[in-house]
């Protein structure tokens, strides 16, 4: 029996086409996506049928966790610095340029103003850990939240307020936030919701 001769073929696969595809996909992802902001607390937003998208820029988002802790984030770093300086001035705290620089890079902030200096001195990994324990005080005796909002609007008057709250948040908290905003004559907000596919059954 003669051996069947197997032709020696090189096993090299041409990866050019594969590379083309991956580059295409990569370009797609880079162009369409927006980065997820790191949030100190996990928030599940309630679903709604509303289809309005959130505006792109000038957003002041207010994050409310189920326990009623309030955090804020802004999309422009320049505004953040200005806001912190003003809030600091209101409470008699001055921040060094280094601290302002650190604050600028925070994705979300929400620390009582008296703890702000200590918080900014921490390393960023530690900041992430401890931030969830803080939250901006919103009670009527010490409503720092109101001051933050007021100063944010001084820094940038074209801000749009977006409220992102967990679905289990008690209405009491939402009410106090809305009352604070109404006191500042901010009467229009966007409530961030998830998409729900449901139509009226008629």
């Amino acid at each position: 029996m003669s051996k069947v001769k197997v032709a020696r073929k090189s096993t090299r696969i041409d990866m050019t086409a594969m590379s083309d595809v991956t580059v295409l996909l990569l370009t797609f992802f880079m162009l369409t996506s927006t980065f997820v902001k790191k949030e100190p607390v996990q928030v599940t937003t309630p679903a709604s049928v509303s289809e309005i998208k959130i505006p792109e820029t000038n957003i002041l988002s207010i994050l409310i966790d189920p326990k009623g802790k309030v955090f804020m984030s802004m999309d422009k770093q320049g505004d953040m610095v200005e806001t912190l300086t003003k809030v600091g001035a209101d409470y008699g705290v001055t921040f060094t340029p280094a601290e302002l620089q650190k604050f600028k890079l925070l994705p979300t902030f929400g620390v009582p103003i008296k703890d702000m200096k200590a918080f900014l001195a921490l390393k960023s990994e530690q900041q992430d850990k401890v931030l969830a324990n803080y939250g901006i005080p919103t009670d009527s005796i010490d409503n720092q939240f109101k001051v933050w909002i007021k100063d944010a609007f001084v820094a940038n008057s074209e801000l749009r307020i977006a409220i992102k709250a967990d679905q289990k948040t008690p209405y009491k908290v939402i009410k106090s936030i809305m009352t604070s905003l109404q006191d500042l004559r901010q009467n229009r907000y966007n409530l961030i919701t998830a998409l729900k596919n449901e139509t009226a059954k008629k």
Partner: protein
Amino acid sequence: MAEIQSNEGGGKHKKGGSKQKKISVFVDFTPMVDMNMLLITFFMLCTSLSKPQTMEISMPSNDKNITKQDQSEVKASQAITLVLAGGDSVFYYTGQPDYKNFNSLKLSSYDANGIRAFLLKRNADAVAKIEDLKQKKLDRKITQEEFTKQASEIKKAKGTPTVIIKANDRATYKNLIDALDEMQICDVGTYVIDKWSSSETFLLKNFRTRGSLSNNIAK
């Protein structure tokens, strides 16, 4: 790992006496693909593709200086008050609160047979018109702008109900969003989130005790 394969010396392809070396260029793209895949994975995990949905609401001003003239009064016949209580329960009453009859407050639910059915019935006129309009838009008879304009006119027309949403402290944010959602589904143009008042507390208590409080009034 680009490699240049020269055919000289192989002997196989040697043909005659052409002296020019045939050079085939083969670039190995495998590392490139590896890197791209890594980047794609990174982008897929670290980004969100869809922008979140939002609901736009306007709250009434808290200003104490507003005169009576500026305040909008709601006709009792058109008013529907949704009472969002704790434990995902929702009640509604129409017109003025009726302290004498505990049945004026009706228990409802957030699902399709609850407040939605009731509101759709109350707002049947506007809902039908909006449906018509939507169909027209689908048939490309009117543009998006016209649609928005006409829809808001229909929603704000006379005779459409005005919904007042009142939530107590035990209601959750989800309840509020659900209620606002129903406004959108049922094409209710005018609705407002109002503060909880003592009359709602009374009505709720009265409902839960099946009218004992109104009996007290009667005495």
